């Protein structure tokens, strides 16, 4: 089976976020960006399915040239090859523009399964998978906590607020995964070395047959007016335990100061 797994290069969520006051956009420093941790679950799911059934995993992303880094990480985990959709005309794309670009890259691959994370760690809308399923005309099975394939049927445990549903569809289909699908593997040294030699195809919008007015800033229907910090990351007190019991007294003093004890 062939699986296309969508990944995104995002600012490292463990670092403080910075907003450019002039452009009101998130400062995206490629050196401080990583594969979206949520996408590693999608890569892991794809790898496990291909290990079981045979086939190929293709990582797909849209972004500037630096987004290659996210694809290399997916290939270091075990993906076979990758597609980078990159074009200056794609800058400022909204969800629909992004979905159009990814769909144009994925369609010729004719995958059995497209796997996405439920939502990205940065923009956090969770809209892309639905738009992609719509454009590719695939049934979508969302919020997966487990994914299995038998013959031409994909079965998903779909997490809900009250438990989970077991849902099925005939392949090809699109699945979105949650962190419950299983811990993503850490790339081995061999994997990291191999990833350097694996092929990445770079596609611009002309090669994908996309018209400029349907993507990027001109194609966007939603406009971001403003972005602002919710609150500063706290500057809390950090005490290193030295085994004398002093740190425990310090916690107690702190708990008294907030009147919990």
């Amino acid at each position: 089976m062939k699986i296309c797994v969508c990944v995104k290069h995002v600012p490292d969520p463990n670092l403080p976020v910075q907003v450019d006051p002039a452009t009101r956009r998130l400062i995206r420093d490629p050196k401080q960006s990583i594969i979206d941790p949520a996408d590693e679950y999608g890569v892991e799911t794809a790898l496990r399915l291909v290990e079981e059934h045979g086939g190929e995993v293709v990582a797909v992303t849209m972004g500037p040239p630096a987004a290659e880094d996210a694809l290399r990480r997916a290939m270091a985990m075990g993906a076979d090859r990758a597609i980078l959709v990159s074009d200056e005309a794609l800058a400022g794309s909204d969800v629909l523009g992004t979905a159009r670009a990814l769909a144009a890259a994925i369609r010729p691959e004719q995958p059995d399964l497209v796997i996405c994370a439920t939502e990205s760690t940065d923009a956090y809308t969770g809209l892309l998978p639905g738009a992609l399923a719509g454009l590719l005309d695939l049934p979508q099975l969302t919020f997966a906590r487990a994914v299995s394939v038998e013959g031409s049927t994909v079965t998903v445990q779909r997490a809900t607020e009250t438990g989970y549903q077991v849902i099925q569809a005939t392949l090809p289909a699109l699945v979105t995964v949650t962190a419950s699908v299983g811990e993503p593997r850490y790339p081995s040294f061999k994997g990291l070395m191999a990833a350097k030699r694996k092929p990445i195809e770079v596609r611009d919008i002309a090669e994908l047959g996309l018209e400029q007015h349907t993507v990027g800033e001109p194609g966007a229907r939603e406009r971001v007016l403003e972005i602002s910090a919710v609150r500063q990351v706290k500057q809390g007190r950090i005490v290193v335990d030295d085994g004398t019991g002093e740190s425990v007294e310090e916690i107690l003093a702190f708990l008294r100061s907030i009147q919990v004890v």
Partner: protein
Amino acid sequence: MSQARVLVVVETVAGEARPAALELFGAGRPLADRLGGDLVALVAGSGVQAVAGLAGELGADRVLVADDPALAEPVVARVARAVETALAAADPELVLLPATTLGRDLAPLLAGRFRAAHLVNCTRIELEDQAVVATRPVYQDKLLTTVRAPRGRRIFITARSGAFPVPEPQPGRQVSIEPLAVSFTEADQAVTVTRLVEKPKGQTNLESAPVVVVGGRGVGSAENFRLVEELAAAIDGAVGCTRAVSDLGWRPHYEQIGQTGKNVRPKLYLGVGVSGAVQHTVGMRGSDTIVVINRDPNAPLVKMADFAIIGDLFDIVPRLTKRLREVRGKA
């Protein structure tokens, strides 16, 4: 009855409205008033007549009731068909859905079908003459964005749960309750539900407890959670856990805090062996005070903490429990 302006989609489960769906009335009633039109509620499910009455008491002027055994289970394509039927009947400008797993699947599907704008996971919705302006949290709630969608076309909006208050019910309001017949197509069956599995229910006061003691993967085993339980007992706190811990089966799912678990905002959150993955921190970010015991000074939760002890929890937690018992007279 005047022109329908706002439709709220009331999601039901086992004949009862989901709490997040009732909050839509808090968001939708003021919008309908501003627009000078009716607030219409779609109640979709099976055996949902009581919910229809409640929708009227909460502020709907008109309630469309799609009461059909086919809607007993939350199947996205079928509920989408019910919403489409309601849209044809009421023709509202704004459509509000809850940001539940069902709502988050429904809204993009419908927005795609109608080529309409979709404002996601909103915490504020404001009307301007030419546009709807909405605020939503992004980047694991670290930032807020304000987005604008032009009016004149239908707009789909999902409301974040907890952002809008459920209005006080007003019994005896004038309301029109109408049945809505939905015809399903074959395409609505592309995804089929073969089974429903309920989470084990259990007793916990996690969401209301002023002190919550949370154990993460660093606790190491189900047996070691005894340390967390004893600490919680010594400080009169409730026990919580991370997703990794409930996935490993060390603790029941109903104690899980975070994206796929519960949201807590206690006076004191005390994290033991919790690294602070974003999937967890979205569920505890609103805590008044965060205290952390962890080996790793670079753990994300240490950076969020008001007070962090870097060290071995197996050393520190028993000592802290003992001292708490002493000072609180529970020794």
